[in-house]
């Protein structure tokens, strides 16, 4: 179904732009949580820290 292949420059550009757009949405949501749902915001970062700890 999904195997590694070489990407064209156009595909690479499209993927980079997709990362950028998703990053904007994630960042906005994080800022929203920080202001309006600090519990969720803290939980988000806590889960990341716990995951990172296993690899540090």
């Amino acid at each position, binding site marked *: *179904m*999904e*195997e*590694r*292949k070489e*990407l064209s420059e156009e*595909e690479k550009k*499209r*993927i980079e*732009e*997709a*990362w*950028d*757009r*998703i*990053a904007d*949405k*994630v*960042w906005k*949501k994080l800022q929203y949580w920080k202001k309006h749902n600090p519990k969720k915001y803290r939980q988000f970062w806590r*889960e*990341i820290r*716990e*995951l*990172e700890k*296993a*690899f*540090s």
Partner: protein
Amino acid sequence: MEKFYLDTNLLFGYFLKKILERKGSYIESKVSDFIIYSSKKLKYAFSILTKAEIVRKLKSEFNASRNDIEDVWKGFIIEVSPSYIQIPQSLEEIYGEIVNIVFEVPMKKRVTNLEHLIIAKKNNLIFVTGDKEIMKKCKDFYKKILDYKMLRKMYENINNLNPKKDG
């Protein structure tokens, strides 16, 4: 060569790093870096269930568009080169096994990680999970379960190098 079936939590660490580094935050991610460089020595695998969970998170929690999610998923496939594991077993067979497990051991959490466990078992994959309950209670049911630290250690043994020097 053994294949490692990663749980969604670990895989999502990869996606988060790629996302947040674009915002100047969370630039150093040991999780994401590990997945990328270890994929040159270890063979990773995912199923349609893994993809469904990543899509759900990106769509439901962050409202990402379908096209963008498909594109970043493609980026992940290119960078990490995992194998796609088709699930030939029927739902009846998979959930039959889950029912057997929950009859035997009390499980507090919902069954999604058990679904991953059965997929790993049925396809002879090493299941890598951060779910402590699965680690603790399901080893008798399927031996090939590793937590994240065990995966890292196994990689170090295979590579015979400190992964920090290999990044």
